[in-house]
């Protein structure tokens, strides 16, 4: 008989997160009616931050199934829950699409666009010509269709894997594991393409005449790291009744720490790959995006992002002792989540404020608004279920896991 029962706590967290989310979104709406453009950019920031974590969690589950991983089984339900909150974003994307003309210069072929932070500078004739060539992809109807495809894939994969996993909690049927293991590798190409194009659509087309094929991977790399941070923090804090945190051993935390280290390095590697090729080639159509960020007022933030986002956490996480201490690891995870927010700000905000870093209060309200709703949705999905796959055939192996 299993000692862990279904999880019924967390109602306080859920109510609080939901309330914070609604207040944040209401304030953001107020912001929209006073200053639509900065509010839409802020909303994009909050939306891409939290959605990335949710989708990365789905991809994570699929990857671990594909690798037939056993050690992670105890943590899998939390990843499934994080991914299950993706349905909220299918609603939250609607304001983004309705306000597309405030953030995406390519709307209406760029003819209406006035560059923010300038005295009415518009696209030149040549630029409009280039934008017109891109219009088969960059048009609003196709954008809507693409969003529908992305969310269909994410919701379906998340629902499918999670439903099988929860069904196993009651039946314990072994073929459910086989189903998950088979379904996951097939879903990965779809997940990879949707997150890549989502990154293109939401972040890269803020500068529609600029393109970088690695951009989607960059957005994914940052989100994937952030998802591991959330997983670490959730695990450290899941110490209550019927929560799985008490069953997690030092070996699991060691692995989480190693994954944090690996994906800090991966994010930096992708960031630098993108930068080096564009910097070395120095082609006008590519260089502009980086010129804005590495020269002038954005330069200090770019340099500190490299130091604080890569160098500091990388050398901190090299320590083996730190990775064996859950509390310290959670502190590093919180730090990395802040750095991920700075990273997204660095991606988004120069399009709104090319003259230099600036602050708009809706950055905070949309961040906590979207985040509050996402956390509340995840808590709602977690309640009434087991916090770990209790009848998974590998659960006992996962509980006994030691470092090889």
């Amino acid at each position, binding site marked *: 008989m299993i000692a862990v029962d279904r999880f019924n706590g967390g109602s306080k967290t859920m109510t609080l997160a939901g309330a914070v989310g609604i207040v944040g979104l209401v304030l953001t709406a107020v912001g929209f009616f006073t200053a639509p453009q900065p509010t839409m950019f802020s909303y994009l920031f909050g939306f891409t931050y939290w959605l990335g974590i949710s989708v990365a969690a789905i991809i994570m589950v699929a990857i671990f199934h594909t690798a037939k991983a056993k050690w992670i089984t105890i943590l899998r339900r939390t990843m499934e829950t994080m991914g299950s909150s993706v349905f909220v974003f299918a609603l939250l994307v609607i304001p983004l699409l309705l306000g597309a003309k405030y953030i995406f210069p390519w709307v209406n072929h760029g003819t209406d666009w006035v560059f923010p932070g300038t005295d009415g500078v518009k696209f030149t004739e040549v630029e409009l010509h280039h934008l017109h060539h891109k219009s088969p992809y960059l048009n609003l109807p196709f954008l809507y269709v693409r969003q529908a495809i992305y969310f269909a894939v994410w919701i379906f994969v998340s629902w499918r894997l999670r439903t099988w996993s929860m069904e196993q909690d009651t039946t314990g049927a072994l073929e459910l594991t086989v189903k998950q293991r088979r379904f996951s590798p097939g879903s990965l190409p779809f997940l990879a393409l949707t997150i890549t194009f989502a990154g293109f659509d939401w972040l890269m087309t803020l500068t529609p005449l600029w393109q970088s094929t690695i951009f989607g991977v960059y957005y994914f790399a940052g989100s994937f790291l952030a998802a591991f941070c959330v997983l670490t923090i959730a695990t450290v804090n899941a110490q209550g009744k019927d929560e799985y945190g008490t069953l997690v051993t030092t070996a699991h935390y060691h692995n989480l720490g190693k994954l944090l280290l690996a994906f800090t390095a991966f994010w930096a590697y992708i960031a630098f790959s993108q*930068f*080096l090729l564009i*910097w*070395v080639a*120095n082609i006008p159509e590519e260089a502009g995006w980086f010129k804005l960020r590495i020269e002038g007022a954005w330069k200090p933030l770019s340099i500190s992002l490299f130091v604080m986002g890569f160098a500091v956490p990388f050398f901190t996480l090299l320590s083996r002792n730190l990775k064996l201490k859950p509390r310290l690891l959670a502190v590093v995870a919180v730090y990395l989540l802040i750095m991920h927010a700075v990273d997204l700000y660095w991606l988004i905000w120069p399009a709104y404020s090319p003259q230099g870093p600036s602050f708009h209060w809706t950055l905070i309200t949309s961040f906590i608004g979207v985040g509050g709703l996402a956390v509340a949705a995840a808590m709602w999905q977690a309640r009434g279920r087991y916090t770990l796959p209790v009848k998974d055939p590998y659960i006992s192996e996962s509980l006994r896991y030691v470092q090889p």
Partner: protein
Amino acid sequence: MSAETKVLDSWVLAEFATPDALVDATRQMREKGYQGMDTYSPYPLHGGSEALGLPPSRVPFIALGGALTGIVTALAFQTYMNTIDYPLNIGGRPTFSLPAWVPITFELAVLLTAFGIFFGLLGLSRLPQPYHPVFESEEFRSASTHGYWLSVPTAETTVKPDDIKNQLTSLGATHVTVVTGEKE
């Protein structure tokens, strides 16, 4: 006789049937105060180093030394060659082009880290070791196929080899022998 005792030493060798028995016996022998023991198994042994009470590995520090050497060497070389000794204008890029030097710096850091780990581990393990007294035992060959062995040096204890043998047998050793050979 006195000349012989200076160059020769004895080890008690014990074979165990399972890795768990080996780890368990190793731990108990260490708790009895034996020092300088070593374990031998055909594949990495779970809990072996903990049972032997080995200190944390020094390999990470050697690796870090390798990485830093690689970074400093690569940056210094590229700066000297491209900026100081023979500056060339390549596509209008500055002669001191730090981003362009990162790949070589990264590669050299990785290479010297790998060298550091590989040769550092060999050195700390005192390998390659063409001769060790335990090789005198014919049965010890099973350590590379299916046997789990423990060696206890007699030089670091006053307990008689026969008593050590008895202790190992009572801990579950399936085969116990004493080997004598030249000191390491």
